């Protein structure tokens, strides 16, 4: 099996997808692969949290791939339904509006390679549209407006707006892909507390609250290194996401 775990990519299991490849593989690699991950503490298989889904040190390659194919799909796979719907509606809307305004010729990997590589390719279906445009151009290199051509090249403001809309959609989806690659799966909601009589307080002596109070609750999902450095993104999302 390769470094990225080929089996996981082909047949994704949500827990495996979230954990990504074993961080020990990354830490042993030379070069830039090891710079964010080599500082991780050694992986101890005997710890109880070994089975807990975490993306700290790992990347969700499959989630990132499906997020590139369809905006929002990666967040959907990880359980962030509300964010997934918002991303899908917003990114797909501006991408389709860009295509409608400028036509398929605004996505051009030959003449407009800069815009294509800079942003448009961030939405996976742009590759299909580019292939379709190439087939149109190869079939009819110089469409004659007098003879009802099958397509017309974009011009003036239409070309500008179409290119900007599709490029910005690609850049935004690239943000979503990077976000989902570092995001742990949403934890399952906590089971309901029993309604019966609760047992009394434990008479045994309690540990000092110094570390126990500062430790995060068990419900909190682990935070990835990138998002921890960000300091703004919460991985918990306990209430706001559907």
């Amino acid at each position, binding site marked *: 099996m390769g470094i990225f775990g080929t089996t996981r990519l082909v047949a994704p299991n949500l827990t495996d997808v979230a954990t990504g490849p074993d961080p020990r593989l990354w830490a042993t690699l030379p070069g830039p692969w090891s710079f964010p991950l080599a500082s991780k503490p050694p992986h101890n298989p005997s710890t109880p949290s070994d089975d807990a889904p975490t993306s700290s040190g790992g990347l969700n390659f499959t989630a990132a791939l499906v997020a590139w194919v369809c905006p929002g799909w990666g967040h959907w796979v990880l359980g962030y339904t509300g*964010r997934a719907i918002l991303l899908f509606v*917003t990114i797909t809307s501006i991408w389709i509006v860009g295509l409608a305004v400028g*036509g398929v010729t605004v996505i051009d990997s030959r003449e407009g390679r800069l815009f294509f590589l800079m942003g448009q390719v961030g939405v996976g279906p742009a590759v299909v549209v580019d292939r379709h445009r190439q087939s149109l151009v190869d079939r009819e290199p110089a469409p004659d407006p007098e003879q009802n051509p099958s397509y017309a090249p974009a011009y003036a403001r239409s070309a500008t707006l179409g290119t900007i*809309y599709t490029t910005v959609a690609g850049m935004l989806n690239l*943000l979503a892909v990077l976000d989902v690659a570092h995001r742990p799966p949403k934890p399952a909601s906590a089971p309901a507390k029993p309604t019966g009589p609760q047992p009394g307080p434990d008479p045994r002596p309690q540990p000092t609250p110094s570390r126990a109070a500062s430790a995060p609750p068990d419900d909190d999902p682990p935070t990835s290194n990138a998002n921890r450095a960000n300091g703004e993104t919460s991985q918990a999302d306990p209430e*706001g996401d559907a």
Partner: protein
Amino acid sequence: MSWFHHPMPVSSAWPLFLPPLLLAVALVYRTLKTTDLRRLPREAGALFAQMLLLLTLAAVVLWVLTEL
């Protein structure tokens, strides 16, 4: 498919296409960054207003520098 094979004439209406783009940028960015989706409308609205205000200000400054 004809829509996507022939560009739309938007010569005079092109400024109307810019606010939706800003709104989309604000929505996607705050969707990825917010800690609670219930705060998303307020945060995205604030970011949209900031971008619209600053870009309008930049446009005015550039217009003054180039036209006056």
